[in-house]
């Protein structure tokens, strides 16, 4: 299916096409990796909605990226349960191993590092999301093995 067809399919689920902006942005982001201006304009055009409505949502919600991110987006949870189970040490370890800070991408474009709010998987704290997958019960050794596997 083309992006346009996928977006049309999503729009059919709602009585109002404006409701389909979020699903359309997710579809577009999957297609393009991130959401630069021209893609946002295309989404607005496909749905036939005001451009400002699309731009507004793309910037309000944290899962939408208007800037490119690395091939692997490392999203380490540092909320309370993960913090109590050692997420701070993991962050330091990631920063030294990758040579980047929070919000940065490695020069080879492989890894982007972020800290995120609770991932809703505190039973396996500390947790990190990479792409679609959750990795729980992390310690430094497991983290190294995980990075090794990704490289």
């Amino acid at each position: 299916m083309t992006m346009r067809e996928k977006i049309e399919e999503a729009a059919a689920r709602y009585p109002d096409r404006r409701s389909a902006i979020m699903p359309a942005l997710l579809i577009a982001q999957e297609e393009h990796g991130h959401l630069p201006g021209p893609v946002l304009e295309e989404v607005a055009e496909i749905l036939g909605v005001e451009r400002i409505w699309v731009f507004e949502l793309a910037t309000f919600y944290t899962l939408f990226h208007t800037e490119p991110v690395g091939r692997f987006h490392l999203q380490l949870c540092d909320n309370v349960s993960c913090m109590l189970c050692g997420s701070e040490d993991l962050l330091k370890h990631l920063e030294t191993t990758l040579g980047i800070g929070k919000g940065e991408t490695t020069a080879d474009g492989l890894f982007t590092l972020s800290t995120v709010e609770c991932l809703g998987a505190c039973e396996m704290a500390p947790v990190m999301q990479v792409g679609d997958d959750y990795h729980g019960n992390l310690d430094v050794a497991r983290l190294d093995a995980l990075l090794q596997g990704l490289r």
Partner: protein
Amino acid sequence: MSEPVLLRNVDAADGHLLSTYEADGGYQALRKALGEHTPDEVIDLVKQSNLRGRGGAGFPTGMKWSFVPKGTDRPKYLCCNADEGEPGTFKDRIIMERDPHQLIEGLAVSAYAIGAETAYVYVRGEYVTAIRRLQQAIAEAHAKGYLGRGVLGSDFNFSVHIHCGAGAYICGEETAMLESLEGKRAQPRLKPPFPAVAGLYASPTVINNVETLACVPHIVTRGPAWFRGIGPDKSPGPKLYCVSGQVRKPGLYELPMGILLRELIEDHAGGPLPGRRIKAVIPGGVSAPVIPESGLDVGMDFDSLAAAGSMLGSAGVIVIDDTACMVKVATRIIEFFHHESCGKCTPCREGLNWAVKVLRRIEAGEGAPGDLEQLDRLCKGIFGNTFCALGDGAAMGLRAALKHFRDEFVAHIEARRCPYH
């Protein structure tokens, strides 16, 4: 209650498949509701059960449903709140990943009761596995006639759609969720009107949490008396408790409402880590005020926790031991609320910003005399003065930390450093 009800399928390898769900009576509640009960009778069963909302506020579910106006021409909607953003909470994710049909049957029975033909399940976008499993389950249920036109040969038409969130905690607040579903920025609406009267696209809309909806089929098959027989009469039922933090066996536990917090932690979750002592517990996600160790003999139900100055909330139980710094925990919680504030009202947006600055300074050993009084004033200025409950939750939590652990805050200021580092 020895046998789990809500979690009965979660450990099965194929718990997410229709065949597993059907094998021990799945979709019998839907069959029974459609075949033996009018919609009003289903609402009555839920009213008699005293089921209260598992999303955190504990509002009586049957009563909420009965506020949906009858005889209107407008379509009615059912929305499932699966945004689960409250730190410390993971129960809805586990239901959706491991037993999605339980939720779908709950949606179908509930929609029949309120007269809705469409449901939207608002799932947080990070829950990729849950979303896939739900999609698969919806397709399976459709193929078997549990969803679609003329459900099980009746004249009830019903379809379920998934709407993925995109990383904003405020979308869990029900009116912000409606804005988000309408394709707008998620900022809360003024209540009243309550969504039951004017919600999605200004139509009557019932919003319920995943766990609330998952209880409904069991009430239909086993009866309201069974449900009320579990736990306190005014706050009954089987309950999911999410235990995390500094504890031996973190995990999801299904136990009766009203179980003692101490029993949950000591007997079920294995107690503190070796060589540690429990210092405090947050019983209901970070919106719930912290309870010091001396207060753990409290029943885990809406009324007992409210009487003890805290709240059941989402039943996200976070265990904090004697190695943890309470100033740091409080700072992290207020940073969270500040980050997630939607910015619509000043006390929350500005008050939390200010509180974060003061807390960070205290934790860094740069606190000044008067900082604690400043924080007290900020809590007072926020609580009761915000547009939605996000601000209230933040203020209540901070107030409790300042009350029960004031000595730790004072120690930071006097020693000009964090005693834990």
